[in-house]
């Protein structure tokens, strides 16, 4: 039987083409996604090795797992005194300090360019320095810098160029002495790297203080000895790690994200494959119907139902393996294409192409299994073929769908709806949603019939071809339904993500925006917000008040954290501090208002030790606990100025909150923003953030995610398109006699093609509209039941533009899907159509 299957596949490869394409597309997508995410993971993890490969001991700020430090980008720094002690330890051979700060070049016109680049202290120890000089020499003397290859290419810079560099210490005349590279890529830093000589670095990147973001050691003996000796040397708030420990942490931080990404992407690829499964099921059903006579002859001459079934399954196996292998190849091809596109735009695929056995095997297995599962039911049908069918004259019209089916669909729908609206747990809500979706699948043939009944009067007015198109579309309601279902799944998911995603995004953005905040925030990385800057900002039309204050890294209760001080009364006026406990009015010298950081936050009345890398450690009484909000995340804990100076020394203000005049509208706000940015652009260390930036940022991220997911889901819609092409082609083949007759008695080719197109659009509309309605219904029901059963209150958000786009895409897909079948429908000779058989 296997030989028969093989020859059957070879004989009618054309018929199987659509099936193959569906498998190839699904598996190819799966493979490409796996390869790309593996590459991303490898390169992120590889970067860790490139950058820190020779580090034996690392000294890093211990953030104690606190959330506050992620947002307040102002971690504790390693002071030079500590570094000196570390370098004196036994076995330490060399050390490397990391010190970075934003810089930019100034052009001839004084305008800054290459903004977003990072100035980086040049590390003199070759082994610890991850950056290689590939042209010129290292920046070792004052006034020398090296730029990375990418920056040099993008900005047309070369060794020997002399130009001003904008730094924390103002513009500095520098000479480019070298071009650098980092491992396989150009720069360590995303926006480009400018390496600065050790003589200049502390002045330009750290306002003259000799301190480091982190410090790495190379040792000759056992790193563990140095780790334990080092732990005694470093001040509170720092952690000394062995190189391995440190690299593991770094890898977890970078690779973990990529791993999640990979799982998510693969999920969508599997979804695409499942939609492909519908197409395969459909094709095989049609193939079985077409080969009825052949199967019946086989049955008549003695093939048992089991043999017939096995023969069909064997065909599925051949196709599944073949399609999956081709799919894996296509996946790699896709990756190559992506790489080529990226290279054309001056980028490169992270990690490059990696051939891994896991990806290849899982792609082939997945494709084959889904194909096999999809042919199960058609194979059973083939097994049931009666020898009598061989003698029957014309193909029998398929039966109307059975009543049981309708009943089942209605019951599922009822249960699902009831479950979603009345259940107490989210698990039941999920299961109910699945029931609603299943009901649509089961009832799909009826939907097809209802849909046809609805559009028939409409299309009848478009002439006899409209009428015939409707009739044909429901001649086999189950086949139409299966074809449309493939599209339905895709459209449902796109709609669901659009509606549920938009609702969730709006909710999150609203929540964030509800947190009160200052209208604008100016902060410096390593610089000072001086009186000059404050008065410049104050002069911007529309700015009501500018409050500059000191913000410094501190160690509270042993954990690295941030604290601020300054004119606390003015600060409270321009910002929105929410208080959990206690009162800010009690904030006197010797007291502190801490940030609510969940578990382990001190309570009002507690005494906590607060210190810094430089100053003394003082015990402070907690008088208030602040709610985490946009402003408190910037300030951290609040301390009265006198006490603050005691702890951190005489620190200059590094941050300012701005309040705008009350009556400014949105358009004026843009002008004010421009005014502020004109000032901050002059200094690369300054960052201006609009107060609701966090909300905007989160909105942007969510939008990106929604769009990325939608893009991936569109893949499954494309596979569904193949299904429509397939069904249309086969039904045209089946009806070639009818089509021939219509043409003989006077239907012009144009009208025949229009008829085929209309039928195709009908099928695609069935899938699109029911997918859209189902997606809308399920996501809105989800929102309602989430609101009912949890503390959240989501507002259902219906992205009308996207939904209309989906509808239009559905029609266009239908027309596209009909292109080939329509051409085929009139390419047959009229005579073949009537004289055959």
């Amino acid at each position, binding site marked *: 039987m296997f030989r028969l299957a093989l020859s059957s596949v070879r004989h009618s490869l054309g018929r199987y083409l659509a099936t193959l394409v569906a498998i190839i597309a699904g598996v190819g997508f799966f493979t490409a996604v796996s390869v790309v995410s593996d590459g991303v993971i490898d390169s992120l993890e590889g970067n860790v090795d490139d950058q820190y490969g020779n580090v034996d001991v690392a000294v890093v700020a211990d953030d104690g797992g606190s959330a506050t430090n992620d947002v307040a980008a102002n971690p504790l720094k390693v002071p030079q005194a500590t570094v000196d002690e570390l370098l004196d330890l036994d076995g330490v051979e060399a050390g490397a300090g990391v010190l970075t700060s934003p810089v930019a070049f100034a052009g001839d016109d004084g305008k800054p360019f290459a903004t977003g680049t990072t100035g980086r202290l040049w590390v003199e120890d070759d082994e610890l320095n991850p950056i290689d000089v590939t042209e010129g020499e290292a920046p070792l003397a004052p006034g020398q810098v090296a730029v990375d290859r990418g920056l040099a290419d993008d900005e047309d810079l070369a060794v020997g160029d002399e130009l001003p560099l904008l730094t924390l210490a103002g513009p500095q005349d520098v000479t480019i002495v070298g071009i650098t590279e980092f491992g396989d890529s150009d720069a360590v830093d995303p926006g480009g790297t400018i390496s600065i000589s050790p003589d200049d670095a502390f002045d330009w990147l750290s306002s003259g203080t000799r301190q480091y973001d982190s410090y790495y050691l190379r040792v000759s003996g056992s790193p563990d000895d140095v780790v334990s000796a080092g732990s005694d040397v470093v001040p509170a708030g720092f952690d000394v790690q062995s190189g391995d420990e440190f690299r593991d942490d770094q890898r977890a931080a970078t690779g973990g994200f990529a791993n999640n990404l990979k799982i998510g992407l693969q999920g969508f690829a599997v979804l695409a494959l499942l939609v492909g499964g519908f197409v395969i099921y459909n094709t095989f059903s049609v193939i079985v119907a077409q080969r009825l006579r052949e199967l019946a002859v086989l049955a008549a001459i003695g093939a048992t139902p089991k043999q017939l079934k096995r023969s069909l399954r064997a065909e599925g196996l051949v196709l599944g393996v073949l399609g999956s292998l081709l799919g894996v190849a296509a996946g790699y091809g896709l990756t190559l294409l992506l790489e080529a596109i990226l290279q054309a735009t001056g980028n490169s695929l992270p990690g490059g192409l990696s051939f891994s056995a896991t990806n290849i095997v899982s792609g082939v297995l997945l494709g084959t299994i889904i194909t096999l599962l999809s042919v199960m039911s058609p194979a059973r049908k083939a097994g049931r073929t009666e020898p009598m069918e061989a003698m029957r004259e014309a193909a029998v*019209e398929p039966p109307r769908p059975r009543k049981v089916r309708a009943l089942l669909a209605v019951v599922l729908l009822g249960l699902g709806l009831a479950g979603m609206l009345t259940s107490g747990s989210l698990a039941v809500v999920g299961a109910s949603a699945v029931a609603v979706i299943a009901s649509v699948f089961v009832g799909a043939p009826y939907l097809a019939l209802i849909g046809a009944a609805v559009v028939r009067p409409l299309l009848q007015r478009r*002439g*006899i071809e409209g009428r*015939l198109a409707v*009739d*044909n579309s429901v*001649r086999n309601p189950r086949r139409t339904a299966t074809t449309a279902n493939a599209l339905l799944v895709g459209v449902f998911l796109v709609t669901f993500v659009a509606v549920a995603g938009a609702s969730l995004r709006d909710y999150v953005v609203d929540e964030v925006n509800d947190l009160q905040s200052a209208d604008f925030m100016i902060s410096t990385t390593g610089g000072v917000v001086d009186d000059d800057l404050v008065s410049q900002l104050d002069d911007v039309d529309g700015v009501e008040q500018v409050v500059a204050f000191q913000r410094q890294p501190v160690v509270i209760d042993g954990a690295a954290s941030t604290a601020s001080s300054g004119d606390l009364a003015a600060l409270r006026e321009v910002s929105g501090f929410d208080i959990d406990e206690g009162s800010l009015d009690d904030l006197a010298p010797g007291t502190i208002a801490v940030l609510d950081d969940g578990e382990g936050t001190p309570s009002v009345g507690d005494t906590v030790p607060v210190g810094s890398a430089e100053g003394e450690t003082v015990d402070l009484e907690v008088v208030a606990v602040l709610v985490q909000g946009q402003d408190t995340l910037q300030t951290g804990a609040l301390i009265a100025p006198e006490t603050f100076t005691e702890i951190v020394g005489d620190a200059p203000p590094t941050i300012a909150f701005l309040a705008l005049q009350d009556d400014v509208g949105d358009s004026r706000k843009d002008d004010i923003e421009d005014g502020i940015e004109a000032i901050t652009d002059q200094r690369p260390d300054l960052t201006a953030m609009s107060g609701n930036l966090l909300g905007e940022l989160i909105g942007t991220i969510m939008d990106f995610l929604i769009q990325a997911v939608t893009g991936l889901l569109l893949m499954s819609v494309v596979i569904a398109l193949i299904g429509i092409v397939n069904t249309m082609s086969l039904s045209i083949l089946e009806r070639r*006699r*009818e089509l*021939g*007759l*219509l*043409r*003989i*008695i*006077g*239907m*012009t*080719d*144009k*009208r025949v093609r229009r008829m085929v197109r209309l039928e195709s659009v009908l099928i695609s509309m069935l899938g699109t509209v029911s997918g859209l309605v189902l997606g809308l219904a399920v996501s809105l029901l989800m929102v309602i039941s989430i609101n009912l059963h949890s503390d959240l209150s989501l507002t259902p958000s219906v992205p009308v533009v996207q939904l209309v786009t989906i509808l239009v895409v559905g029609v266009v897909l239908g027309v596209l899907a009909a292109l080939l079948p329509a051409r085929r429908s009139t390419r047959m*000779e*009229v*005579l073949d159509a*009537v*004289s055959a*058989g």
Partner: protein
Amino acid sequence: MSAPSAPTPIRAAAAGAVEARKTYGKGEAAVHALAGVSVAFPAHEFTAIMGPSGSGKSTLMQCVAGLDRLTSGQAFIGDVDISRLDKNQLTLLRRDRLGFIFQQYNLIPSLSARENILLPLTLAGTDPDPAWFDQVVHTVGLGDRLKNLPSQLSGGQQQRVAVARALVPRPDIVFADEPTGALDSRTGIEILGFMRRAVDDTGQTIVMVTHDPHAASYANRVLFLADGQIVDTMEAPTADRVLDRMKRFEG
């Protein structure tokens, strides 16, 4: 769609062919389905085309009916040289001027009997003449079956629908290809009777391809084809005479 400029010898005919050749293949392997046939089908008459398998009888009818193209020569419907028409013009010509009856009834399964009968008129966007429609339907005896779908009709009834579909638009000429081939003899006789009456009562022109001598006996005249050429003509045929003539091909 314009008439050919040269005068033709068959102006009075409803259709015909001049030096019609149809060749399949090339060189040595060439098969001449039609080897230079000139023929005229007179208007208001019932012509039967007979011949052994492979004689070219179906090819001749198909080429004259605009379903197939000649390799050389001309085919006419009335005074229109259809070898000059493009595909679209041919389709419109068939719609407006020709009727067809096939061995397989070739009805559209989703349309009722009435809709099937009116299909050519629907395609043309013309309203049927109700009296004529009733007369045809009455003649072929379909009065109470008009609302049924083809699947609810017997083979004979389906062929009646097909005959009515060919006659209702009042075509210049009806082409029938083995119209009784799939029917039992009693039903076949009925169908042939309708066709004969259409010629006698309303002056319809019919060209029929058949291999059944009894069916041929309903025609005014029989053309015998062999090896792509007309070898004989018989006026006022009877079944026995046709059978005798056919036997001579086998001998």
